[in-house]
């Protein structure tokens, strides 16, 4: 029995689900927004916001035993502590499977708003070359859209969320509609000037970030307190809570239902539509059924794939909307990790004021628009960096005691350190995949997902090249000491997982059409990272947002025409 019907149901309230809820309600639809996690109310539930260090357990040192028991994956995010642990997934309660020899870190949010509260907020547009990469070099399938299809939607979402950044006029990193850029450290200006002079193909720019540098659409400019991941009651960074949820609520057409685990979708072969959403109330265990004219699946790449795989039927024996057989395959994530760090003895009389929630960016310069003759890999990578003036925690591991030791630790260290992390493009391999493990049901009786992924030859060769290029950069920048490292973090650690329900014009090799609508079922849309056909090397959230807004526009127009 259907408990309630809506015009649209959006599954997941993270970055894309929030956008779908906003767009669909603003276009006049009554929307039910479901999230499996408990509610997180803007401001009120940011329990650790602005907590001083001396009020945190162990002054913020990792609570290792608790983390090892309950947050053994979430802890790899590097930004979780007692102040925001309630925003992360409990890995003991919500397990998934992987071969221990091929670790995959599925880092998840644990509340309404999902990872929109926890992301690093970097916003970069895919370029035309990114959309053409698969068809140009033959790895992966062809994107059904190009940059020009998405450009107006990039404009649209940037205008709403507020992205600060510097226009650079680069082909490989299209400029957006930017709020004023954040400032660089003095040392970064020195480094930028030196490397751009000595290595002209390199551009160093301030990170483009969804953090407000001026008041924007009723949200306050950043106050530079530092740890955004604890939540921001002034709404100075983009999250579901700060931005899309208030917009959706303002329409009076939104119903948010937290603690609602979507078990499966039901397909009606007569109408050829998704007819019922089966939900389990995470608190009471009660089973509920909802229906709607259209369904937007925005649960995150792996979770959306899990729901579709668990929604098989006589019509779709291998998972809902999976007539192509590619559902769950072609999982991608960026290679990530520190590529190098360097010490500088410049700008020593220069310090800083405020905590910048952002770093600098060196856009792709290898295989840029054409294959470099000395590159043993295809595609590219970008560098994200940050600078630090050492403080007591960097200086403590020296010998000595007493006044001299205390004085040395109290003042800033006499050097600057600059670190850069590499973000490498990952090719789509069908062996990198998500499946269901029916032998291992979770606490709701839903089969756990099993993730099988590893970085392969091209990703690792690009990684090796990053270390070589980082050395060139550090030398050109005038570092007095540096070290490099070409290892990558395991897959998943980039938290840019994508690709398991990819778009495409050909229904035989893709799940979604160019409007993020499933080829098989007209009223089912998937707009999270699972739709991606290739990964580029830039952070993907902005692209997910643009695709979601675009898909909502299309879905509502089709609905109004009576075509759905």
């Amino acid at each position, binding site marked *: 029995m259907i408990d309630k019907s809506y015009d649209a149901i959006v599954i997941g309230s993270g970055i894309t689900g929030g956008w779908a809820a906003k767009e669909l309600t603003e276009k006049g639809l009554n929307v039910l927004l479901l999230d499996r996690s408990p509610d997180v109310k803007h401001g009120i539930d940011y329990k650790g916001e602005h907590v001083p260090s001396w009020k945190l357990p*162990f002054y*913020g040192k990792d609570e290792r035993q608790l983390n090892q028991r309950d947050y053994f994956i979430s802890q790899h995010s590097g930004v979780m*502590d007692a102040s925001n642990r309630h925003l992360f997934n409990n890995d003991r309660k919500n397990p998934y499977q992987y071969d221990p020899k091929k670790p995959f870190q599925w880092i998840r949010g644990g509340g309404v708003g999902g990872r929109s509260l926890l992301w690093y907020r970097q916003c970069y547009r895919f370029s035309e070359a990114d959309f053409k990469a698969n068809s140009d070099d033959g790895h992966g399938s062809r994107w059904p859209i190009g940059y020009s299809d998405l450009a107006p939607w990039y404009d649209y979402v940037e205008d709403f969320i507020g992205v600060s950044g510097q226009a650079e006029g680069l082909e490989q990193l299209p400029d957006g509609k930017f709020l004023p850029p954040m400032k660089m450290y003095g040392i970064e200006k020195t480094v930028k000037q030196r490397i751009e002079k000595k290595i002209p193909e390199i551009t160093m720019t301030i990170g483009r970030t969804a953090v407000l540098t001026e008041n924007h659409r009723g949200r306050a400019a950043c106050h530079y307190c530092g740890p955004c991941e604890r939540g921001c009651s002034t709404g100075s960074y983009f999250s579901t809570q700060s931005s899309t949820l208030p917009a959706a609520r303002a329409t009076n057409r939104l119903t948010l239902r937290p603690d609602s685990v979507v078990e499966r979708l039901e397909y009606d072969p007569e109408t050829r539509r998704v007819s019922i959403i089966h939900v389990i109330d995470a608190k009471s265990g009660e089973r509920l059924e909802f229906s709607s004219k259209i369904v937007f699946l925005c649960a995150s790449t792996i979770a959306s794939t899990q729901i579709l795989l668990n929604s098989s039927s006589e019509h779709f024996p291998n998972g809902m909307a999976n007539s192509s057989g590619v559902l769950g395959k072609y999982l991608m994530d960026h290679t990530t990790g520190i590529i190098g760090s360097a010490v500088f003895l410049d700008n020593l009389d*220069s310090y800083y004021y405020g905590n910048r929630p952002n770093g600098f960016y060196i856009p792709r310069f290898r295989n840029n628009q054409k294959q470099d003759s000395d590159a043993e890999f295809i595609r590219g990578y970008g560098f994200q960096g940050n600078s630090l003036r050492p*403080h007591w925690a960097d200086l403590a*591991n020296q010998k000595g005691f007493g*006044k001299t030791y205390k004085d040395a630790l109290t*003042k800033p260290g006499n050097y600057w350190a600059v670190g850069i992390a590499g973000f490498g493009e990952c090719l789509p391999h069908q062996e990198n995949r998500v499946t269901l493990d029916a032998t291992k049901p979770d606490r709701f009786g839903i089969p756990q997902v099993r993730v099988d992924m590893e970085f392969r030859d091209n990703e690792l060769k690009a990684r090796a090249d990053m270390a070589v290029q980082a050395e060139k950069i550090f030398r050109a920048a005038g570092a007095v000491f540096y070290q490099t490292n070409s290892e990558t973090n395991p897959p998943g650690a980039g938290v840019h997982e994508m690709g398991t329900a990819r778009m495409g014009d050909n229904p035989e090799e893709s799940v979604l059409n160019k409007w993020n609508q499933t080829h098989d079922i007209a009223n089912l849309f998937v707009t999270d990272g699972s739709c991606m056909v290739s990964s580029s090397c830039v952070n993907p959230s902005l692209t997910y947002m643009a695709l979601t807004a675009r898909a909502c526009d299309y879905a509502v127009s089709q609905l109004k025409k009576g075509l759905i």
Partner: protein
Amino acid sequence: MNRRQFLEFTSLILAGSSLAGNTYSTEHQQQLFALGKNFIEQPANIFSDSQRQLVRNLVDIIIPRTDTPGALDAKADHFIELTVAHYMTAEERKTFAAGLGELQAVIDSAGDLAIEAESKALTVLLTEQLNNLEERHSDAAWYQLGNRVGNGFDSTAPFICQLKELTVVGFFMSEVGATQVLRHNPMPGIFDGETPLATDQPSWSRNRPGDLS
């Protein structure tokens, strides 16, 4: 101090948090942290009186009161007791207990010095011992260039490094250390990446030990 005395001295610590009586409260985590109590207001009773006094003496040597407050003013000794009781693994606790026991044995064997708790002679003796320990463990990974005191904890760190790390964190992350010794500005309002730095200016306080710059 014979072996039996040594074991007695260290046994309370080795028993760890299971026997520590008061475990640190997680109740306040249900509310807004910023309105909660300071962490070091939590009780801890894993140390004996003599151990507690010894830790007081040690943190006072590592970060003394100068023209600014020192580790004792920040109750870094109590932070260490809380950490030993509820943060350390059994192995780490064993290392800490043994290290403390060795120092107590040296004090006990000083015999005629009959050292008073706050005496100058004791400070001289303990400073010498700390220097000896640092020399003995000068090759510990903890001292390696590039290592820093972060959110984690080096399980292989010898006692001397454990002691220094916890004193430093217990001092600079405390309210006293952050606001009276470092510069504390929780709401800067702007970011400027190139302000002039005077030679006597302290660093900014940090939100977490692992925070960069």
